[in-house]
């Protein structure tokens, strides 16, 4: 079996390197917990399968639920570099894959003028000069003059890496099409040099905020993972991990409060990262439980629109009392 794999693909599979961390779904879940990322069952299953099936993962979900964090934690978990490609409109091959250092090339031709003259001495006629020049011109299109961009770098990692292609929905459809080739074969061809193949196939995570519909071709090549806002118990766990020192009662109240706010009709719902920020703030302010004054003053940490803040302020007493009740029910009197 091993040799059969070697025939179909000459590089090393990442699969053989980190089998220990990915032996089962439970193992993946525990490993994530070790690096302080609370992964739901769905997330753990997807990552487990992505690793074992050698498939990229397309992660979707509202902003701030830890899509990017997932890739970071994954890299930390197996201790490989994280290579990040941030997508934006107009992103093209030369910024994602490689580019020639034109300036350097031109500069070198100028600086080496003398050398060139020296090289050319003793040659008669134009044709012969060009002939001699041709013997050397490959130098200028060698790896010395190649500016590696994230995708190219990702193919050159000795121990594999996690390649994060962030906000793929922001890139143009053309770039998406280009990506298909890289994602399926993990090799790229640089016309002047030849085909470059991945030393170790990287683990690829793509994230999308759904600003536009991605092409079916890309979706077909990926496993699909949707991360929703976490439910209350999961969010409490996340806070426990991310904000050490937060009292259990405050944690309960805070999560119940945020969950209630998410049910309101808002322009932008508070994300998990904003919940964490808020918890840090409350911790700094030495809060032991939610009180009206303090919440009102710190609303702007998790609500980012004036309308939303005004809306929330109106309903503040009700929200706080429901949060306190929820905490009381859970046994934090």
């Amino acid at each position, binding site marked *: 079996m091993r040799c059969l794999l070697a025939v179909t693909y000459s590089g090393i599979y990442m699969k053989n390197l980190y089998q220990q961390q990915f032996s089962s779904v439970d193992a993946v879940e525990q490993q994530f917990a070790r690096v302080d990322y609370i992964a739901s069952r769905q997330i753990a299953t997807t990552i*487990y399968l992505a690793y074992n099936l050698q498939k990229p993962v*397309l992660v979707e979900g509202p902003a701030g639920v830890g899509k990017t964090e997932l890739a970071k934690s994954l890299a930390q978990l197996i201790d490989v570099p994280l290579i990040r490609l941030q997508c934006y409109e107009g992103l093209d091959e030369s910024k994602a894959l490689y580019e020639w250092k034109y*300036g350097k090339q031109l500069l070198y031709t100028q600086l080496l003028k003398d050398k060139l003259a020296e090289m050319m001495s003793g040659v008669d006629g134009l044709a012969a000069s060009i002939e001699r020049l041709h013997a050397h011109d490959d130098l200028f299109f060698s790896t010395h003059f190649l500016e590696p961009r994230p995708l190219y770098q990702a193919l050159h990692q000795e121990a594999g890496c996690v390649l994060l292609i962030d906000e793929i929905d922001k890139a143009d*459809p053309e770039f998406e099409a280009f990506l298909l080739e890289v994602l399926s074969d993990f090799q790229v061809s640089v016309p002047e040099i030849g085909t470059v193949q991945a030393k170790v196939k990287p683990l690829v995570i793509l994230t999308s905020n759904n600003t536009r519909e991605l092409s079916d071709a890309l979706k077909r090549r990926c*496993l699909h993972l949707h991360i929703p806002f976490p439910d209350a118990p999961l969010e409490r766990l996340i806070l426990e991990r991310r904000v050490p020192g937060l009292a259990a009662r405050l944690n309960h109240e805070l999560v119940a409060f945020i969950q209630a706010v998410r049910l309101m009709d808002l322009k932008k719902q508070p994300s998990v990262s904003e919940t964490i920020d808020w918890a840090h703030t409350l911790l700094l302010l030495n809060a032991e439980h939610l009180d009206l004054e303090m919440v009102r003053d710190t609303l702007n940490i998790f609500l980012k629109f004036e309308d939303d803040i005004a809306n929330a302020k109106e309903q503040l007493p009700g929200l706080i009392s429901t949060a306190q009740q929820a905490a009381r029910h859970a046994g934090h009197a």
Partner: protein
Amino acid sequence: MRATLEDLFKALRGSGLDVALNAQIDASRAVALVGWADRDLLKSALRTTLVKALPDHAVFDDCFERFFSFSAFRQLRPSPAVQLAQLAPSAVSPAPTFGTYGQGGNGASGLAAMVFSGDSAALAKRLKEAARQIGLTDIWVFSQKGYYIQKLQRQMGLEALDREIAEVSRQTPTAPQVVELRQVRQRVFEEVRNFVEQQLALYGTAPTRQLHDDFLQTQKLAHIERRDFQRMHEIVRRIAKRLAERHARRNRRQLRGQLDFRKTLRRNATYGGVMFETFWRSEVVDRPRVIAICDVSGSVRAYARFLLLFLYSLNELVSDIRSFAFTNHLVDVSPTFASMPVEQAVDKIIGAVGGRGTDYGQMFLDVLTQVLPKVDRKTTVLILGDARNNHGDAQVGVLNLLHQRSRRVVWLNPESRLLWGQGDSEMKRYLPFCHIARECSSLKQLERVLDDLLRTHGNG
């Protein structure tokens, strides 16, 4: 197990999910990894490999639950006679006779014995096996129900059971076991019918829907009924999306082109010929501009809904499009499209703009003031209407101006070409000033026309 997975894929397709072949391969590899034991794990593994978009998650969950819940023969209890026989074998006389039905193990007697002993697992297994043998998953319309019920019953051995009942009742017509056996037969029939109905719900929806869609696409727009509006909207949306995707790419060329060597040399002359700065040839991005004018008057009312539907979908997808509607005055409907969901928007426009007394002349006069200043040689003007002007002034001159100034004037007429120019139709007079004029009465035609239109737009 492979057959089970294949049935699941079929059921998912039945629910309207698009399951690609390589997703199926992934799914079976994933199942091989995680196993069948943990239901939740199985579900999340299948979900992550098969479902590619958020709205489909709910569809998948529902289908998964329905597929793996198997309720046939669930409430089966051992019949009272058997229970009695178990309590006191010698006390009850009919018990030994039931025993004889159980002897065979196969065939009808086996079936009866299974029901009598309440062995629901064995019955369910038999039902499933029979279903697989007759290919029940191919069911797709409700009228096939009877056929499949019959086939399934025969496969399970009900015919033999019938013979047995006949035999027993011929010998001793009043025997209590005849009643019992009839009850068993009825019981099995009901379970089989329920099962077939379930399977129809699971597998039958997709082919029927496809048939319906095909029908709607080729049918004349005027003949389509109001209740299909929702379905039509989905189809139109899909078509509009396909068109927009196919043609948007053409117009968005790469912003950065090749090295502009001449410019680079010239600019770097200041550095004594050392080329520090590079310059790039860039291409101009050409975006199509479309101005659509739609007739919503009484004479084309049946079409207007769908034309507006199409315009609405295009509005969602094409960046630079202005839409107008008219009966006798031109009204800009782009804001309405932008602010309302489709059905409301279409209703509102037809309510506010639609009516009697089409006046193409007045419309063209409005065009002269409202639209013409916005038209340049990149603009495509799209007119949807039957050109029936109630014998008024046709204002052909304005169309001539549009013809000269725009890149292209396209007229889509829902009437057959043979009727153009008949009665109060001014189509023959407008015709010379249209770059393209086509008949367009069904969705298929509409799609083809627009596809041609956008293609020539890209090249021209």
